C-alpha cells in the first residue's frame, strides 16, 4: 500500500483506477483518459496533485538563499504573489528538480516541488539553508487541487466566499494569493487557463465534491500526462534529470545568467555547456501511424554532433489525433527524422513545442 492523499477515498468512490506513482496511490483515470483530456481542453477538469510537496521558506535571508539555490532568479519577482518556474541544479548543471516558487512576502517564499523527488529535494535545500538565516518547513497539511480548462476559473471561483470571488477572478497568469487558509494560484500543467488551489487537508474532499457539482470533471494522471505533453511541458525524470542540464532539456529560458554577478549552484557548468552543448530537446510529430514512446531511438541527419537521439516522452495526442513526443537529439537543421518503433523506422518531423495551447493546435499537422 502506498501513500494516500486526503482525496484518496473520494477517488475510489468516484470510480478511479488507482496506480502507484512514486510511492503514492493516485488516480490514473476515472473511466476514460481521453474524455478527461478533452474535458480539460474544452470545459473544465480537476486533478488531485496533493502528492506534490509544498515547502515554505522564511527568514531574513530567504531571497539571498533562493538566488543562490535556483537557476532562475527570484530577484525578478517584484510583486507579491508572483510565481517563477525554475530548475534546482547540481554543481554539474544536472537538474535535481524543476519547481515553482511564489513570492509571498519579503521574508517568505513558497515552493512546490515534485513528489518523486521530495526526499532528495528537502535534503538538498536544508543542507544549503544551513549557511543562511532561513527556515524550511514542509506544509504536509495542505492538499492541492488543479482545476484546469477554459471554464475552470469561473467554476472554481464558486468555492470561495462571494466577497472573495472577484479578487480570485482578477488574479493574473502566474500569480497566486492567500484566501484565508487557502492559497489560489493561476498556474497549471495543461496549457489551459485555470487554478492550482492549496487547501487544508480536512477541507479537500468537500471542495472536490463542490467542484464536481459545478460540472468539473475529475481527471487522472493519464490525462495530466497527455495534456502536459501537448503543452510542451517537461516531466521530471523523463525529459530532464540529474544527467542532463537545462540547456539540453529545453529549459534555457529558465536560466538567468544575468545579472553576471549572481552566483548560483550550477552556473559555472552551464557557462561551459553554453559553448559545447550539441544536443537539444525538441518536439516530434510522427508522420506515420503508431505511437511514439520514451526511449525509442531517433535518427537525425545533418548534425555534426552525432546522428542518434532518444525520445524522452511520447504519447498519442487526443487533441491532434496524432502521436507527438519530446526528444533529445543532436542539434540539426534538418527537420525530417526517423524513429525506431519496435525495430521499424518511421518518419517523424521536428517541430517547436508547444503542440497545443488553449485548445488550439499550434503546429501544422497536415
Amino acid at each position: 500500500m502506498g501513500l494516500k492523499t486526503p482525496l484518496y477515498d473520494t477517488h475510489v468512490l468516484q470510480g478511479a483506477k488507482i496506480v502507484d506513482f512514486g510511492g503514492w496511490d493516485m488516480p490514473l483515470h476515472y473511466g476514460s483518459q481521453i474524455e478527461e483530456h478533452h474535458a480539460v481542453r474544452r470545459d473544465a477538469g480537476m486533478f488531485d496533485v496533493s502528492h506534490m510537496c509544498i515547502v515554505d521558506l522564511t527568514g531574513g535571508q530567504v531571497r539571498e538563499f533562493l538566488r543562490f539555490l535556483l537557476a532562475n532568479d527570484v530577484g525578478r519577482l517584484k510583486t507579491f504573489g508572483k510565481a517563477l518556474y525554475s530548475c534546482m541544479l547540481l554543481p554539474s548543471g544536472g537538474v535535481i528538480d524543476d519547481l515553482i516558487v511564489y513570492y509571498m512576502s519579503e521574508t517568505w517564499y513558497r515552493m512546490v516541488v515534485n513528489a518523486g523527488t521530495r526526499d532528495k529535494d528537502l535534503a538538498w535545500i536544508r543542507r544549503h539553508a544551513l549557511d543562511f538565516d532561513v527556515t524550511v518547513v514542509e506544509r504536509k497539511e495542505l492538499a492541492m487541487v488543479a482545476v484546469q480548462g477554459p471554464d475552470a476559473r469561473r467554476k472554481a471561483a464558486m468555492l470561495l466566499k462571494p466577497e472573495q470571488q472577484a479578487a480570485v477572478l482578477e488574479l493574473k497568469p502566474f500569480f497566486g494569493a492567500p484566501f484565508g487558509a487557502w492559497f489560489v494560484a493561476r498556474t497549471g500543467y495543461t496549457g489551459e487557463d485555470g487554478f492550482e488551489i492549496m487547501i487544508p487537508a480536512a477541507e479537500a474532499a468537500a471542495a472536490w465534491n463542490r467542484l464536481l457539482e459545478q460540472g468539473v470533471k475529475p481527471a487522472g494522471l493519464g490525462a495530466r500526462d497527455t495534456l502536459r505533453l501537448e503543452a510542451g511541458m517537461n516531466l521530471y525524470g523523463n525529459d530532464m534529470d540529474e544527467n542532463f542540464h537545462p540547456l539540453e532539456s529545453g529549459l534555457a529560458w529558465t536560466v538567468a545568467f544575468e545579472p553576471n554577478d549572481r552566483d548560483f549552484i550550477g552556473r559555472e557548468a552551464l557557462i561551459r555547456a553554453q559553448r559545447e552543448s550539441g544536443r537539444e530537446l525538441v518536439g516530434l510529430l510522427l508522420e506515420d501511424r503508431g505511437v511514439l514512446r520514451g526511449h525509442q531511438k531517433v535518427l537525425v541527419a545533418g548534425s555534426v554532433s552525432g546522428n542518434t537521439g532518444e525520445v524522452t516522452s511520447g504519447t498519442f495526442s487526443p487533441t491532434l489525433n496524432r502521436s507527438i513526443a519530446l526528444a533529445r537529439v543532436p542539434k540539426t537543421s534538418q527537420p525530417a527524422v526517423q524513429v525506431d518503433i519496435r525495430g521499424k523506422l518511421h518518419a517523424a518531423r521536428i517541430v517547436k513545442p508547444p503542440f497545443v495551447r488553449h485548445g488550439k493546435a499550434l503546429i501544422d499537422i497536415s
Partner: protein
Amino acid sequence: MSNNIPADLKYTKSHEWVRQAHGEAPNGTLEVGITDHAQSALGDLVFVEVPDVGRSLSAGEACAVVESVKAASDVYSPLAGKVVANNGALAGKPELLNEDPYGAGWLFRLEAGGASNAEGLMSASAYASFLAEESE
C-alpha cells in the same frame, strides 16, 4: 473492472479470445481478438497493428500490437495458422476495440493448420477463474 466473458469463446492466459466460424467467416476459420478484461486494463486504445493477410503464425507468436494512451502491448496468436483476414476498420477506429471487444473489435482471422481444435485454450469458466486468481 469490465469482465464480460462470453460462454461460446475460448481464451488464453495472455487475454486473447478465439471464436470458431462466425458471421462472414467460413467454416474452419478462427476469429481472434482481445478480451473485455484486456481492453479495460489497457484503457483507451489509440493504435492497433494487425498481421498481414497471408502471414503464417505459430502458436504463441507475437503478431499484433494494441496501444493505449499509456502503453503498447503485444497480442499473441492463440494457435498456429495462416492469416486470412484482418480488421482494417481498426486503423481508423481503434476505439472499436474498447467499445465492442468481442464483435467489431476483432483483430484477425486464422485458417488453422491441420486439426483446428482449440485444445490448450481455456473455456469461459476456466478463464473467469484464471482472472480471479490473477487479481488476488
